[in-house]
């Protein structure tokens, strides 16, 4: 089982190698397979006992989430664009805490980075499953605390 996982990792890495390369000559491909094996071996040495297993279902759930995130990014970018070009008095920076609905590491990191990626909200600290976010306006803080993003993330990678 473990060998199978390792093999799968090597195949995945080699696919990335092929997609980067565009150069398919035998010696380079042989060295490529060796390189992928070396990286997989180093990954094995770097692995932590407590680490989360990759969830293969993410492969089709994540793109769906990204599309939704892209929409959010468009909306919030336009909002912040107005704030940047408008008067300073429109700013009302505030710190809020957001509860993450899924508490595994990947989901927390995904939520934290999604909050940062939508301008107007910025993750500045994570404690257990509470994320402290710095918001540019009270309105941004409210929409963040409404929890739509947290629920989406929980659906992508549930505990």
């Amino acid at each position, binding site marked *: 089982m473990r060998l199978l996982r390792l093999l799968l990792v090597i195949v995945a890495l080699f696919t990335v190698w092929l997609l980067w390369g565009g150069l398919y000559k035998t010696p380079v491909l042989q060295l490529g397979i060796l390189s992928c094996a070396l990286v997989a071996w180093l990954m094995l040495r770097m692995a932590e006992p407590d680490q989360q297993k990759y969830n293969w279902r993410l492969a089709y759930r994540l793109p769906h989430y990204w599309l939704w995130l892209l929409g959010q990014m468009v909306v919030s*970018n336009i909002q912040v664009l107005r704030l940047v*070009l408008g008067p300073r008095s429109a*700013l*009302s*920076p505030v710190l809020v*805490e957001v509860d993450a609905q899924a508490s595994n590491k990947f989901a927390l990191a995904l939520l934290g980075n999604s909050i940062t990626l939508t301008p107007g909200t*910025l993750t500045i600290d994570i*404690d257990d499953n509470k994320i402290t976010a*710095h918001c540019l306006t009270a309105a941004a803080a409210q929409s963040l605390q409404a929890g739509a993003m947290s629920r989406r993330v929980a659906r992508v990678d549930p505990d």
Partner: protein
Amino acid sequence: MNGAVEIVSGALVVLGSLFVLAGGIGALRMPDFYTRIHGASLTDSLGPVLVLGGLMLQAGLSLVTIKLAAVLLFLMVTSPTASYALANAALLAGLRPAEMDATTRAGVINQEEDSA
């Protein structure tokens, strides 16, 4: 390459670069450090998506597009991480956000001491 794709991709690239420019203005105009990160994050979110997306349209279905997609993917993963690390480093050094809510302030400081 037909004309319509050319025009759309050019428009995307220019639009994206305008967002990038707005991010630069934001980083310069915002009043304090934490709000400046917000300004700068305009550069890090939609700007690259539009610019690299536009270039991908131009390149069509090829290995160049895949490489651009890889660049975009890695940027989208690393830049918020960098912003978080930066904000956290500033917080750790005692740089406080302006106009902070009193209750959360206590919460943040406690957390910081626990983790250290």
